[in-house]
């Protein structure tokens, strides 16, 4: 009994210590003025790595999800003769929930895991230690551009996801299922609110970007510098950031759209 209690205590302390280390990492990486010695090239390179490379999976998944949403929505709505509300249903689902969340999950799987593996590998091959020796803070040179790249890329990816998903829904709903294009768009435009839906979606995507990149970078730095350590850290990145995204989505939804 006491051993279990002790184990619980130790786990609790470990978790708290992990949060502490992650917080310190974030603070140290983002604190302080930008260091132009490294130039904007690092941020650009990371935007390329994190953003552009994730684009394919985001676009393909977006189109498919939009198409599925339209198909499913249509089969339900047509029973009430309300298929003209398809655009409204699809766009609200995407803008408020599905867009940011699915994009963040894909982002965690594509970019987050890659970030963790890359940083873990830099640690294993002593590149981080070499930076320390040369007099560069790895948190500044490695963590900072990656954090910013993730934070900037995620809202862009989520909006691209929303756009292609809605276009996918148009392709299925309007072109295939013959929902009237006029009522599709006008219903959508009448029900979607700029601040409430579009802006809140962007805020969500931004928050998810911070969390996913933060977890990915931290797990990379915290990884055991061994092949097993890196692979566990990569798995942890995907699992933790997915959970964090879903939990945060609930919180943010409660705050944004919750009961007044």
């Amino acid at each position, binding site marked *: 009994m006491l051993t279990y209690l002790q184990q619980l205590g130790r786990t609790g302390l470990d978790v708290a210590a992990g949060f502490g280390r992650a917080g310190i990492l974030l603070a140290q990486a983002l604190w302080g003025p930008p260091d132009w010695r490294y130039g904007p*090239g690092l941020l*650009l*390179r990371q*935007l*390329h790595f994190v*953003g*552009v490379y994730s*684009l394919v999976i985001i676009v393909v998944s977006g189109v498919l999800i939009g198409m599925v949403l339209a198909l499913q929505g249509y089969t339900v709505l047509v029973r*009430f*003769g*309300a298929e*003209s*509300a398809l655009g409204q249903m699809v*766009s609200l689902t995407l*803008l408020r929930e599905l867009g940011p969340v699915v994009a963040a999950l894909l982002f965690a799987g594509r970019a987050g895991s890659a970030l963790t593996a890359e940083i873990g590998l830099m640690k294993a091959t002593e590149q981080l230690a070499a930076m320390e020796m040369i007099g560069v803070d790895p948190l500044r040179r490695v963590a900072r551009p990656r954090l910013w790249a993730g934070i900037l*890329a995620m*809202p*862009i*990816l989520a*909006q*691209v996801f*929303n*756009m292609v998903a*809605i276009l996918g829904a148009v392709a299925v709903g309007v072109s295939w299922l013959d929902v009237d294009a006029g009522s599709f*768009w*006008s*219903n*959508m*435009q*009448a*029900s*979607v*609110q*700029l601040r409430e*839906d*579009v802006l809140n979606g*962007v805020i969500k995507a931004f928050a998810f970007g911070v969390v996913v990149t933060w977890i990915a970078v931290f797990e990379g730095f915290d990884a055991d510098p061994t092949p097993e350590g890196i692979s566990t850290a990569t798995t942890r990145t995907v699992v933790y950031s997915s959970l964090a995204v879903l939990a945060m989505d609930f919180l943010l939804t409660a705050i944004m759209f919750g009961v007044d």
Partner: protein
Amino acid sequence: MQSRNIEISVGAFILLGIVAISFLVIQISGLSFEDARRDTYKLSAQFNTVAGLTPRAKVMVAGVSIGRVTAIHIDPISVRAVVDMAIDKKADYLTTDSIASIKTAGVLGEQYVSIAVGGSEDILKEGDTIKDTQSAMILEDLIGKFVTNFSDKK
């Protein structure tokens, strides 16, 4: 050369983001630049009840959208609902004897303001009020009436 390619692709990426957000803002949420240019004029109408009508609801003539509801408030004197509408300047054919009514698009659809244009020569101008109105049908009231009529006849 490699860094040039990176710059180009990141530039394209950011451009794509801008395209996506503008697509969402303009096409999806319906914030057209026409709204921004404010080439609309204001009309209002008083209803006994607006049940379910919301700001940004459409204003239609013969099923064609000509404007939007901008605000809904209570007139403290008559204690009726006042609906303010922004009407497209191009819609300069609304006569003073037009009838405004609140209707529902389909059974489950959203509510909108429908304006039936009358035969008068006088045209409504900025700030005018449509006097002739029909309030929203409230399903519960209808059912209630139906039930009482039914039991009276018995």
